[in-house]
């Protein structure tokens, strides 16, 4: 019952630019793709926060600002057929994978678009076919680690060379499901990759009150699995670490846990003023904003010009605006649809007019039914 104020424990990583373009296997289009995904998420979320405050989106709103490098970098390391699942702060991963901002916006507005048709928050998406995102999150933290193990098991049983990558916050490493899911995956050497985004808080709870270790990766020995810990706001560091973890899992050596230290720049949700976050911590991370860092790198180390980037940024803003306009134009779900699609049709669904058949029980009485129970033939426990 100590630790009143949060500490950060971070390798003393300078907010400077590490990567050299000559060493990097990315062409300009690819570098732009990274930038667009991150910037689009940032811009979208700024707008979403404003819409929330104007009462134009329903429920609560959770933003991932500050975690764009961990999101985009990690999913960029996935290959065709790999699965991934996101939590609250991975909108940029959605965009990197090609999910349309207008569809996300429509979901936040509760509009009638598939696959959820207004049943689920804008935050969540499951779309295996188009994006390799299986249904996973059940609202409860870490519930997706057992299901993640299940997807990894499916790959293994089918001998598919794919991995399941699951984003996970620091807080979500505390529920028993984290342990049970990872334990199972480790025993069976399943291709499960945990991308752990340690953004310093779980709602208001600091790392020190969440776990008795400094790094989530310090828990890897409990599962005898591969683990790395890195600064998470440098896109290239993230990409490389994610690649190593993913390829480890893909090669049949079992799960990997790749931990990134990063920062949630906004409150837990937009209702949260994050008064509990010390100023120094905000400043420390503001200097290390992942988009800012990447943008500087593009300018200084890659062949991008300011006007190029500015025109990309203008385009991104326009895209967000048109996403809103489009989303607003869509219809809300029809109230009558609320009872639809509770159960999937099945081959032996009975005819609703079928009468209850007469199927008598005509055996002699069961021994022990009327008298004291007879255990002679009994089960064992």
């Amino acid at each position, binding site marked *: *019952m100590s630790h*009143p104020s949060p500490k950060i424990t971070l390798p003393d990583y300078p907010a400077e630019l590490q990567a050299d373009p000559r060493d990097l296997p990315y062409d300009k289009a690819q570098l732009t793709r990274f930038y667009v995904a991150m910037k689009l998420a940032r811009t979208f979320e700024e707008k979403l926060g404003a819409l929330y405050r104007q009462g134009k989106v*329903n*429920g609560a709103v959770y933003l991932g600002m500050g975690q764009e490098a961990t999101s985009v970098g990690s999913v960029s390391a996935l290959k065709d057929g790999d699965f991934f699942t996101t939590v609250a702060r991975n909108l940029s991963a959605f965009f990197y994978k090609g999910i349309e901002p207008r569809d996300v916006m429509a979901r936040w507005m509760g509009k009638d678009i598939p696959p959820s048709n*207004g049943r689920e928050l804008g935050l969540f998406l499951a779309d295996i076919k188009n994006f390799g995102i299986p249904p996973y999150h059940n*609202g409860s933290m870490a519930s997706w680690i057992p299901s993640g193990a299940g997807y990894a098991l499916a790959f293994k049983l089918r001998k598919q060379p794919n991995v399941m990558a699951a984003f996970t916050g620091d807080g979500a490493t505390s*529920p028993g499901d984290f342990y049970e899911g990872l334990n199972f995956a480790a025993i069976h050497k399943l291709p499960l990759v945990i991308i752990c985004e340690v953004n310093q808080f779980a*709602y208001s709870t600091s790392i020190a009150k969440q776990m008795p270790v400094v790094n989530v990766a310090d828990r890897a020995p409990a599962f005898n699995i591969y683990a790395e810990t890195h600064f998470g706001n440098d896109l290239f560091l993230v990409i490389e670490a994610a690649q190593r973890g993913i390829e480890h899992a893909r090669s049949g050596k079992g799960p990997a846990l790749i931990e990134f230290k990063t920062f949630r720049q906004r409150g837990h949700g937009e209702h949260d003023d994050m008064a509990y976050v010390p100023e120094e911590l905000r400043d420390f991370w503001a200097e290390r904003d992942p988009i800012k860092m990447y943008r500087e790198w593009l300018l200084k180390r890659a062949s991008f010009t300011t006007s190029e980037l500015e025109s990309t940024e203008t385009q991104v803003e326009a895209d967000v605006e048109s996403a809103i306009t489009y989303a607003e134009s869509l219809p809300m*779900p029809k109230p009558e649809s609320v009872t639809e699609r*509770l159960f999937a049709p099945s081959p032996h669904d009975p005819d609703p007019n079928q009468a209850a058949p007469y199927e008598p029980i005509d055996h002699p009485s069961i021994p022990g039914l009327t008298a004291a129970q007879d255990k002679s033939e009994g089960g064992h426990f």
Partner: protein
Amino acid sequence: MARMTYLQAISDALRTEMRRDPNVFLIGEDIAVFGGAFKITQGFLQEFGEDRVIDTPISESGFVGAACAAATVGFRPVVEFQFIDFISCAFDQIVNYAAKCYYRWGIQMPVVLRGPTGGGVHAGPFHSQNPEAWFAHTPGLKVVLPSTARDAKGLLTAAIRDNNPVIYLENKFLYRHYREDVPEGEHVTPIGVAALRTVGDDLSIISYGATVHHCVEAARMLEKEGASVEVLDLRSLVPLDRKAILESVRKTSRALVVHEANLTAGFGGEVAALIAQEAFEYLDAPVTRVASLDVPVPFSPPLEMAMLPSVDKIANAARSVLAY
């Protein structure tokens, strides 16, 4: 008396009991530094210190088990679920440890498990549920659901002083939407006594929790149409005030049972079955139920409104029962 929201009444009960009894402590996620997701325990850390307002890791089973244990050695812990939906993560500790401890060993376990229930705020399938029937079906647990600020305070006080595990279910829509005069200082509402919210002769509407307000509203509408409607607020499901239910129905001869939880196998079935069995001779119309449709709580407002019970749905059902 002080004018309080339903939420403030809950805070007030917690604060009053913590000042009174050093064995009361609070445990849950984000209740200390942040004062709780809904700010029910704001300022408590400052007043009571970190030994009595304990922020936990995200581990409902863990902290429920710990709180229940501490309750068997003289503490009176109050556990907060950030949303009641996460009570499913602690289900085993509740139905197997808490519910059965006293029956097995004669060792008391005075623990309160509380949290926000209910829909209507567009929070989607995992922040809107109503789990009372699960617990009412588990012998050994008391199940309490206040509908007013006054009861929120009085019942929580009684729950904290109760020597058994009490599932205390708050309604998050009422938190800031309901405000009334609440007694200051100690205020106890015994667990197990229903309350009449309106008195009438033609129909008994039996409900609990948030839908009590819908029922009162519907009763007002029906009154204008000439019907005299009694609204009985159960306040607790276990113990159940069978006497009050049966007295009311024996008087009015017509019963409508209403709750926000899903219809099928909801607690309304228990109430309807009780009436059907014990007031059979008095009934002039079928016992009827209004509840949420049998689907998860959808996010989008038109869907959510279609799914939840409403004043109109209740009034319409009441009209049918009255016209029978």
